């Protein structure tokens, strides 16, 4: 921004910021050396001297706030959050990563494992396998809880590579079998061969009924993401284990995180500060690796650079790298427009994850309000 003496400034209508301040308020300037004006100005009286009220108004927020879904499939989703503060968008991101619960394998009972993978490594690998189940159908299991059909899922893995088969057998995640009746392994009891107990021996879980009788699971049994390599077995090796999953949060361990990752970026804004013509225009178009710019034919053989796809900008700063170009092109980010991406691990579809995140934030706010009042 070139500096202008105060008295040269044009008379401004009240309740409106001067242009450069408005820009600084709403845009991040991505200069060649460093980004500037990255912070958000929240203080309601920040511009009081200019007679501008900076306070947040709910009705205005309501009016301006928009959500635009760009891309959505089972695994990932990209959508725009427009008219929201970075802190709120960030809150959603943080909650998605660490506070939306999922189910993950927490306990592994190894009956036999002769593979080269060590038991604890095997358990760790199992833990990281996403389980495709709606975690909302389950309760948390606290420390003293006995695992039951409401708070746990049990999988069985029994793979054996026959001796003399001569080849390696890969154990995949889809070799895990869901046990709707709970654990099959009996608890070690004080008197194991009690003859007069004709009841079923106690197992590591106490299910009162089978999970597949529940309407949610009767038609679609619980599975895990297929195709993940767990281990490899040489001839004669065998893995026999039971994996118990429970509900948890991503902040305890990344295996409970429902997203591979979730992040946002601010909407890129590429402004040509000057008219860029002919060779310069061609140079500019050539420079950009993601084709942000286009050339428009102005007729009479003259060419004109235009910003065609600002959204594609990855901020490689290639266009403003050479000296002099920073005066011609301005790279900016819109501070209240977030391109939000959610990559789900598969437990819940990404759109549901986001609504869950919103609910959790809502919950938190309510809790705060109740505790404050």
């Amino acid at each position, binding site marked *: 921004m070139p500096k202008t003496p105060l008295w040269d400034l044009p008379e401004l209508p009240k309740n409106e910021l001067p242009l450069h301040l408005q820009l600084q308020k709403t845009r*991040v300037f991505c200069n060649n050396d460093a*980004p500037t004006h990255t912070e*958000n100005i929240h203080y309601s009286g920040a511009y009081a001297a200019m007679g501008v009220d900076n306070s947040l108004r709910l009705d205005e927020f309501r009016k301006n706030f928009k959500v635009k879904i760009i891309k959505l499939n089972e695994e990932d989703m990209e959508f725009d959050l427009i008219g929201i503060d970075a802190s709120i968008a960030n809150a959603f*991101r943080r909650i998605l990563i*660490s506070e939306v619960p999922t189910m993950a394998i927490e306990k592994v009972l190894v009956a036999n494992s002769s593979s080269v993978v060590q038991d604890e*490594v095997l358990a760790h690998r199992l833990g990281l396998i996403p389980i495709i189940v709606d975690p909302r159908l389950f309760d948390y299991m606290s420390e003293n809880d006995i695992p039951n059909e409401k708070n746990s899922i049990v999988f069985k893995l029994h793979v054996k590579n026959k001796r003399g088969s001569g080849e390696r057998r890969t154990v995949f995640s889809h070799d895990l079998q869901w046990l709707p009746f709970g654990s099959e392994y009996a608890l070690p009891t004080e008197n194991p061969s009690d003859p007069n107990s004709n009841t079923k021996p106690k197992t590591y879980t106490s299910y009162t009924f089978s999970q597949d009788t529940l309407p949610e699971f009767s038609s679609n049994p619980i599975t895990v993401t297929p195709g993940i390599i767990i281990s490899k077995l040489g001839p004669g090796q065998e893995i026999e284990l039971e994996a118990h999953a429970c509900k948890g949060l991503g*902040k305890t361990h990344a295996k409970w995180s429902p997203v591979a*990752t979730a992040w946002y970026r601010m909407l890129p804004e590429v402004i040509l500060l000057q008219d860029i013509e002919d060779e310069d225009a061609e140079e500019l178009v050539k420079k950009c690796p993601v084709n942000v710019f286009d050339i428009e034919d102005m007729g009479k053989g003259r060419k004109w650079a235009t910003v065609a796809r600002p959204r594609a900008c990855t901020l490689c700063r290639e266009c403003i790298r050479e000296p002099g170009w920073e005066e011609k092109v301005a790279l900016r980010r819109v501070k209240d427009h977030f391109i939000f991406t959610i990559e789900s691990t598969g437990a819940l579809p990404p759109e549901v994850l986001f609504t869950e995140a919103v609910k959790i934030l809502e919950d938190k706010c309510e809790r705060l309000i109740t505790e404050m009042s």
Partner: protein
Amino acid sequence: MVMGVMEGSDALHPSQGMREVDKQFLAAPVKSAVDKFQLVPEFIKVRGLVKEHLDSFNYFITTDIKKIVEANNFVRCTFDDKVYLRYLKVSVGKPSVVKDGITDEMNPQQCRLGEMTYSAPICVDIEYCNGSYGHIVHPQVKKGVVIGRMPIMLRSSHCVLFGKDEEELAKLGECPLDPGGYFVVKGNEKVILIQEQLSKNRIIIDKDKKGCIQASIMSSTSMTKAKTTLVMEKEKIYLNLNSFTSKVPIMVVMKAMGMETDQEVVQMLGRDPQYAALLLPSMEDCSNLGIYTRKQALAFLDKKHRKWNNSNNSNNRKDDGGALGVLRDIFIATIQVKDDDFHRKCAYVVVMLRRMMDAYLNKDALDDKDYIGNKRLELSGTLMALLFEDLFKTMNTGLVAYSDNLLNKSSRSTKFDISQHISREDITNGLERSLSTGNWNLARFKMDKKGATQIVSRLSFIAAYGYMTKISPQFEKSRKVSGPRALQPSQWGMLCPCDTPEGEQCGLVKNLSLMTHVTTDEEEGPIITLCTNLGVEDLSLLSGEELHSPSSYLIMLNGSILGKHRRPQLFATSMRKLRRAGKISDFVSVHVNEKQRCVYIASDGGRVCRPLVIADNGVSRIKHHHMKELKDGIRNFDSFLREGLIEYLDVNEENNTLIALYEGEATSDTTHIEIEPFTILGVCAGLIPFPHHNQSPRNTYQCAMGKQAMGNIAYNQLCRMDTLIYLLVYPQRPLLTTRTIELVGYDKLGAGQNATVAVMSYSGYDIEDAIVMNKSSLDRGFGRCIVMKRHTAVYQKYANTSEQFSTPSRAPHDRERNQLLDNDGLASPGEIIRHQDLYFQKLVPENANISVNAHPSNIKYRPSRQTYKGAEGEAAVVDRVALCSDKRNNLSVKFMIRHTRRPEVGDKFSSRHGQKGVCGTIVQQEDFPFSERGICPDLIMNPHGFPSRMTVGKMIELLGSKAGVSCGRFHFGSAFGEPSGHADKVEDISATLVKHGFCYNGKDFLYSGITGTPLQAYIFMGPIYYQKLKHMVMDKMHARGMGPRQLITRQPTEGRSKNGGLRVGEMERDCLIAYGASNLIYERLMISSDPFEVQVCRKCGLLGYENHKTKAKVCSTCKNGDNISSMKLPYACKLLFQEIQSMNIVPKLTLADS
């Protein structure tokens, strides 16, 4: 010229049309730089990386051992000279084990696990005669008599692993990437370090402590080893020899050797009056002594001759023949004197004199002791040969002594048979003992070497490799001279300039470079004949004056004078041509020294050399079609050697060459071209990407740290039973590799992980090189490691019983404790084991010294247990349990107990650029910054680590890895690799980055994970290969309150292993005194240490005692209890008083009222 790796194949096409192009085009920078690299892998394929060890050992076991046996092949009894034994043939068999009389084949892995020695029988054919008893007896012949067992070097020609392919090696339980070159002795892997020494039999001119010029020669023959020194003191020249009591004027020696007239000496010295003038004082000295004739000189020397009063040696020196004998056999022993013809020896002395005088006249004629060309590397074969020779001789003298003893006996029950008395234990045990202790004690050679062998530590794959290339120094560490520690220019290409330890060994311990070869001994005979045929005038035919005639050069072979040649350059060229043609060995070096007017030919062992491409007038002999043939597999490295395209040069011969680094830089004078510049680095430094961009000490640090990095050890790592194994759960190969990494196999057995690093400051827990780690990354397995410890338990054997297996009780109250144990009393594999858990139980006889007659059923046993001591609150797992017999043939059980650890605050990490740091804090992923593409770093490194360290290579690694990740190609960062395409250039990397939408400088636009707003700076972010080092807090952290105390002083014990206290040392105490915290001092030094209540007699000042029963306090000196006061004292103080008293000193305490 810009050349990428990908362009390599294209470079071949122009060669088709090159045939008719003129020479100018050929001389122009050829695009073959990339191709020529193919020679390096080819070289390593045929050679392996530890060929010097293998060659040396192979030479010993196939050639040298025969020579040794042949030299000492006749053993005759002193009692009856008809009784004799003659060794006809010697050979070393295949590694085997003899168990209960049955010989079985053996492989190294069995030896490692079973604590055996990997050795092969030494078989000899003997011819012997057991005495005549009056009638003629024909000598008997016995074949294949075993005289001992020779430890076999792994992968040597006698090893079962020799020439095996990967699958066969896997069947033998061996890692195909393991280089071999070490021994397995009693289950331990032992490597004989390469020993660095000054060349033997070479004249070295230098200055002694007083600054006098001296010429010394270490002459070593199979018989003797002696040092001869000529010193120039106050212009007079003397001889220093151990056999003479004091220094001897050189002219006396010359006279004693038959050069009676001074003129003869001066004539031999050369016509230049300068030299004669310098000899004048010595001549005067001689005449002052009144010595004019040979007889007088010998008489003079006889007086100086040191008499060996030591009776042991008298046998050897019975016929030493006085001073003449010394001059003949000890004085420059390499020059052998035949029929009292001292001409050769005189000539040699004169050459020495002349060189001393040259040095006197011209200071730069002094030799440099640190010059690599003046050094020899002694390898395992040489050392083993020395040891074997000694043991063989000992065995023979033992045989003679034993037979004499037997024959001496008047009545013998059995018929005497000398072949029955060859002891096979002497050699076996001697070799085994020296290898396992590293002590090379050879009285015969006055050799007393300690620490010649070391255990191959298997901390990481690279560490094991490092041991094979390590060179241990000749000097003691205490010498405070910088010379031997400094980097020698002659090390170029031979010894790694980076890989040396820090601290006291710095610069003394060196490592071999990638392509270095160490020569073995070569026959001299054919070379001498060849030289004569090439026109060398024999020394004995030369008159004294001709020796230094200016028109010709002296020809020296392995330090001794062969003769003269009038056209030295022609001679040298023809020798080299013959070598290239393969008529003489590849490793014979020919070197013309114009200053000394000598041609040196060397064929001795221990010289370092390396291969170079031969160039004619600056044009490389290797053409594109050669490389194409190599690629197609028609050629190999040997054929390049055989066809004279490549040759080995040692350091001395390099001085006669002009070596161009690249073909493009070659001028018409260039004689050789380097194969690849990165081969000047060794294995450890070869792992560093872009080392040529780093500050040099950083590379040195990384060389040391690479050996501590956790990762894969070997393909058979899970079958090994080492005392301690560190493994990484998910090791990766580096994204930014080097050629060396591929050659060595580090890409298959990596020791680190590619972490996405953001270079920024974060949280304040990253000061002083600490790094901030992402918790989610750790959750997902980053830096997870396995520590396996071996615990051993032994079933001891007793006179008539042994310790027994014990079945643990399953009674309710015992069950808890015994739950890990199987029915045999051993913990079963897979069980989770915690601190204080029982893992082994056996039955021990209650009475250790039971009589042999006791009936087995009467012996009573009690159980004995072993509990696991690990970190509290941590769960380990019993990984493997192995049973084997140990060295004393007891049954021993080995438990491998495994502990998997995730990184925690305080664990040490390091990049490959000597940048180590501990984990400062672990932060949740959502608090970590994230990029526009959603990338979240695995760790954050403080940018302050860069300015002072100047590790630009690390930054380029980051850029290169980032480009590699985005374009899907492993990038390279070989040392000095940019011109030849083995390292990607920063411009190219930047272009790749831009192509994939990153900023050219690798800096990303990041959002703060905490506030959600963009960071006010672009952050340098990308993957860097990080190593987890073996230092982990869990093994180090320690604190205690009450705890064990030492027995004598009653002060707390020291050290973590003994749960010791934390000492308030002198300086800490000083601080407390200065601060005035007297009560704190009192508490720390007394109350929490060793308080003790004593009774002090106020009168005599000595310590009394309190009678426990009567509670009466008595002073034992005054015999009453009148003046007793009780006070507190540190127990150590009381102990001191008593100890002083025991030395008849009376310490008195004077008490005052407080």
